[in-house]
């Protein structure tokens, strides 16, 4: 199932620029309600990205809080050169990549067990509840765990691009803005990252007719 990225009306369409400008002005005026709305709209999508990048729920939650603090500290400097969403993701990836670099320096190795869920507990089955069968739940958990494991084997730069493109659905241009690189670099890094992912996930890839 394709995940719906948490967006509000600010991200859609033409009137949106004016609405977004008003919303940014409210943030810059330090309005309580604006910050509540900002957190409500973006905390889920930022958490998903942080979790995929960091591979740990509590680290991701901590990163999310730090990201919103940085948004608050820097919002006065937002001039609307990019969309608010892109700008927030740029801050998010800057924070997340810094954390990955810090861990790398500390030689922290992080692996994800195929049995782990996001909370670090084993799989939970609700046999009596309607919905997917235990077998399907197990398959999904295993597949998602394998994807997460494959992601952790990529470098931070490649992982960022794969998550932004293939999980979050950003365009090449948006990815370039978020990561501060050219579209050509996005294209080449994405090709290499996908090749590495394909090697790790070959048993989960049914051949499709294209």
């Amino acid at each position: 199932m394709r995940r719906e990225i948490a967006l509000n009306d600010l991200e859609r369409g033409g009137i949106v620029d004016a609405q977004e400008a008003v919303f940014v002005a409210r943030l810059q005026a330090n309005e309580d309600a604006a910050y509540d709305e900002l957190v409500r709209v973006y905390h889920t999508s930022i958490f998903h990205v942080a979790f995929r990048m960091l591979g740990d729920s509590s680290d991701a939650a901590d990163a999310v809080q730090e990201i919103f603090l940085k948004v608050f500290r820097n919002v006065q400097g937002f001039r609307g050169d990019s969309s608010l969403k892109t700008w927030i993701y740029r801050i998010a990836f800057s924070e997340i990549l810094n954390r990955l670099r810090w861990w790398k320096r500390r030689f922290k190795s992080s692996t994800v067990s195929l049995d782990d869920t996001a909370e670090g507990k084993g799989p939970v089955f609700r046999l009596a509840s309607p919905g997917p069968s235990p077998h399907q739940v197990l398959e999904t958990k295993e597949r998602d765990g394998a994807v997460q494991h494959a992601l952790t084997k990529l470098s931070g730069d490649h992982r960022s691009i794969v998550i932004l493109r293939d999980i979050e659905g950003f365009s090449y241009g948006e990815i370039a803005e978020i990561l501060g690189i050219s579209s050509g670099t996005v294209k080449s890094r994405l090709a290499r990252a996908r090749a590495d992912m394909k090697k790790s996930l070959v048993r989960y890839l049914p051949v499709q007719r294209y």
Partner: protein
Amino acid sequence: MKVLNNISCDAAQELISPFIDSMVSSKEAHLLQEHLSECHDCRHELQSLASLRTLMAGVEPSPVPEDLQLETRVRLSHERSRSLRAWWQSRIDNVLKPFAVPAVMGVMLTFVGFAVLLGNLHSQHAYAADSRAVAVIYQQPKGTDNTLKFLRAVQPTVQDQAFSIQGEINDAGRIDDFSVISGTRSQGNEPWLQELVLLSQWRPATTYWGLPVRSRVILSFVTVRG
């Protein structure tokens, strides 16, 4: 490495990733499609990457901690109030700093000025020990009314020459020592000299702050004929 329709497998595989994202030009797409129609390996690569993209897009979203939104809002709120306090603090500092140095300098100069002018740099002990510190005395010693009457009443046995004495007045206003400056000390004037020393009462000299200090008084007795 095969080269088909002017495009190699390496070149074709470089195009496959952007091709599934519709990020190739129409010319590149045409070349790639021609190559794929004849190359099984590259077609398999395309199918694998398409499957990978489907797999990635189908990843279940990780469950968000229930209290994440609330905790983030609380932390943000704390940060904002801290920032507001810091803003006010910096404003107050900016306003007060230009006045701080002149104000401190003014206070210091005033203190030093008063100290120099009024001799307040010396301790009271110094006044008491050094009777030469007359310069800092503000009020000169004075005789009390009774003493003045006493001085008028005494009939010192003074001969023709003037008779002067110098008395040391302590901070209690009593003469505790005296010496004859001019004239002769004799049997005749000794009794009233003793009475003068024992019975006269003075208002001692005082500093600016009204504190009594040791001082000196000179009394001259002259016989007026007529």
